[in-house]
């Protein structure tokens, strides 16, 4: 190829490449659309990666809410009903993709507001985009307190009990039952470690002692040393903030070594994998955000029992509603009320409406209450205890308890005879 030909060809290819490459990716400045026909809500769901399962659990409940709202003609905003459109993108559980997803939702899809992705890390990454572009974000699975200390103006946690507040109910219950020492075992991952730290801080705040604070790397299989250390510290409540598979191994090793604790708390205590242990699962404390037997004085949307009925009707073949489904549904109920109350869908108006409604809405998992930063101060968790023959009872908070606790929980010998 001659030099002149090559240069000519290169120039042509260059111009074409620049035009073709840039065109689709230059995002016009965001502008609120006039002549509204619907309310467009953007969100991301992980199709793969760490958050895929939990993210999709939330998505199912969000679809249920969407179906119910649109069945009644949509949301009443500015005196008129508008159908709700949900624009969903895949974030692949990738922190680097989350900002791009939310930019695309804002500039390409021109959504009016957004739901946060699953998890605090992705939410924080997405919030840098939404807040800078004055878009309101409703968080439904954002447990980390730190997200609300960033100075973001337009993010609100409408569904989840923050990680710093999860331990309040179980620790206060322990104190009420006469326990004195709290110990933690955590896998070295963000939520697990943060939850264990919150348990210790809450215990100290309530005048209880911290026995041991153990952390292990994922993949560890021998927990006998740390379990013995916890027992030697006279632990009354052992908090295992880890994976259900690790918890199963720990329970087996406790049984083999006859290590007993008056109470054991884990997020996974009511997982089918734990319940499959039969009598060995008796007495374990777990957490839930809803229980069909607990009916708060709901003034917005269905009670927990009604929600579960609707969910099971929509998804008769499963998967069952879980903690993520419930908080997603609750946050959408609150979001609907915020949209209906706000004079416009601009972020300042939505945030003002969110603050106005704080403390006035009780949904299926309790009373929605936020502070100025959007941090959730309302919803309390329910402490659920496994009982004999696969039963479960709510043992705290006391006001909604369905049964007195088994405290101390049965020893391994006693469980074997139950």
């Amino acid at each position: 190829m001659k030099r002149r030909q090559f240069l000519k060809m290169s120039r042509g290819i260059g111009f074409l490449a620049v035009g073709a490459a840039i065109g689709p990716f230059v995002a016009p400045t965001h502008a609120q659309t006039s002549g509204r026909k619907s309310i467009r809500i953007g969100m991301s769901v992980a199709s793969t990666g760490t958050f895929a399962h939990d993210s999709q659990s939330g998505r199912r409940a969000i679809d249920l809410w969407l179906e119910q709202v649109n069945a009644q003609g949509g949301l009443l905003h500015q005196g008129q009903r508008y159908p709700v459109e949900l624009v969903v993108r895949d974030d692949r559980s990738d922190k680097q993709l989350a900002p791009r997803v939310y930019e695309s939702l804002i500039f390409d899809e021109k959504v009016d507001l957004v739901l946060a992705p699953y998890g605090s890390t992705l939410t924080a990454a997405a919030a840098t985009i939404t807040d800078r572009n004055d878009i309101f974000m409703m968080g439904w699975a954002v447990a980390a307190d730190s997200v609300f200390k960033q100075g973001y103006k337009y993010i609100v946690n409408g569904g989840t009990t923050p990680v710093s507040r999860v331990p309040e109910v179980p620790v206060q219950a322990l104190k009420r039952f006469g326990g004195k020492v709290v110990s933690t075992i955590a896998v070295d991952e963000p939520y697990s470690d943060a939850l264990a730290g919150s348990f210790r801080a809450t215990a100290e705040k309530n005048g209880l002692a911290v026995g041991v604070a153990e952390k292990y790397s994922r993949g560890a299989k021998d927990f006998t040393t740390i379990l013995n250390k916890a027992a030697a510290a006279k632990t009354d409540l052992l908090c295992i903030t880890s994976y259900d598979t690790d918890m199963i191994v720990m329970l087996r090793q406790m049984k083999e070594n006859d290590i007993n604790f008056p109470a054991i708390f884990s997020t996974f205590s009511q997982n089918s994998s734990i319940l499959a242990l039969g009598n060995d699962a008796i007495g374990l404390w777990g957490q839930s955000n809803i229980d069909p037997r607990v009916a708060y004085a709901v003034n917005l949307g269905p009670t927990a029992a009604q929600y579960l009925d609707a969910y099971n009707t929509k998804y008769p073949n499963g998967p069952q509603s879980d903690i993520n489904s419930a908080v997603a549904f609750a946050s959408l109920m609150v979001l609907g009320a915020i949209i209906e109350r706000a004079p416009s869908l601009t972020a300042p108006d939505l945030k003002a409406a969110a603050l106005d409604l704080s403390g006035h809405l009780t949904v299926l998992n309790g009373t929605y209450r936020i502070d100025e930063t959007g941090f959730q101060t309302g919803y309390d968790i329910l402490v659920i205890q496994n009982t004999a023959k696969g039963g479960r009872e709510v043992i705290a908070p006391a006001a909604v308890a369905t049964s007195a606790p088994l405290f101390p929980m049965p020893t391994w010998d006693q469980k074997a005879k139950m």
Partner: protein
Amino acid sequence: MSMVMQSAPSAETAPSVRQRAPLFRLHRASVWIWCLTLAGISLIAVSIPAVSAGVSFWFYLFQWIALASALNLMAGMTGYVPFGFAAFFGIGAYAAAVLSQFHHAPTWAALVGATAAGALLAVLFAPTLRLRGVFFSVVSLSLAIVLRSVIVLLPEDVAGGSSGITITGRHDPIRLYYLMVAVSMGAVAIATAISVTPHGLRLKAIGDDLDAAQIIGVNAKGLRLAMWMLSGTIAAVCGALEGLYSSAIDPAAAFNILISTKAIIYAALGGLGTVMGPVVGAVLMTITDELIWTRFPIANLFILGLIVSATVLFFPRGIVGSLLQRHPRFRRWFF
């Protein structure tokens, strides 16, 4: 300088390399065209925030150009493939986050700290350069995992522990974008400068046959260390900028093996060992990913996997590498 820029055969080069040298001669105009292309890309990049409200796509595009080019300095030019490349990215992200969040350092100080951390880590990991091939790759990966564990086990008020760090002091994203463009173009400029000087040929000799290169007098140890440090430092700065941009750092994301994997895939798809290859690979794959991801919300990863597999099958040496292999005359223009 004559019209033909040569990769300057020196007294250190072997006869075999000397015989091949004419194939690697670059037309001087090709270097100028490449430099003008980089200048054009920079100009376009600088104007993006003025015409587009969103810069995230561009920020990450330039990040991958920088990371693929930085990885190519090591993997492409010396033949050492560091699967633990993410360690540099992670240490940079953590250094910037710790300085910014716990010590309230301004952006520039956080970046200086990240650069120093990257260089220090490269020095600490330098003994692994004694290993070769898969052993080096595996050990570098292990060290990245060890580093991640160390970060996790440090006290929370030192490095945030397992929960990571959320950076509350907000940094201007547009300024961070400009910095990423500068780092990216800087990485490509460094690769270009190395490639058109005798060092490029020496590095190629190391990549082809380390023992032979040493026998003919190439300072393999020094060159490898220099490439290792350059590569690691650029990755650390990228990590710092990304951490400040997304404002959320945690061990899983900062030391994610996908950082290494994607940098290797992008560089390899473009053409490992070439200067243009990693840029072409990063640009094409990022754009392809973006187009697929927005149009196929569910099947996007599946389609992307098919495209990567097909590209590797049809262009086993990468796009630029395969082009040069099939049409050697283009070596005067593409490098």
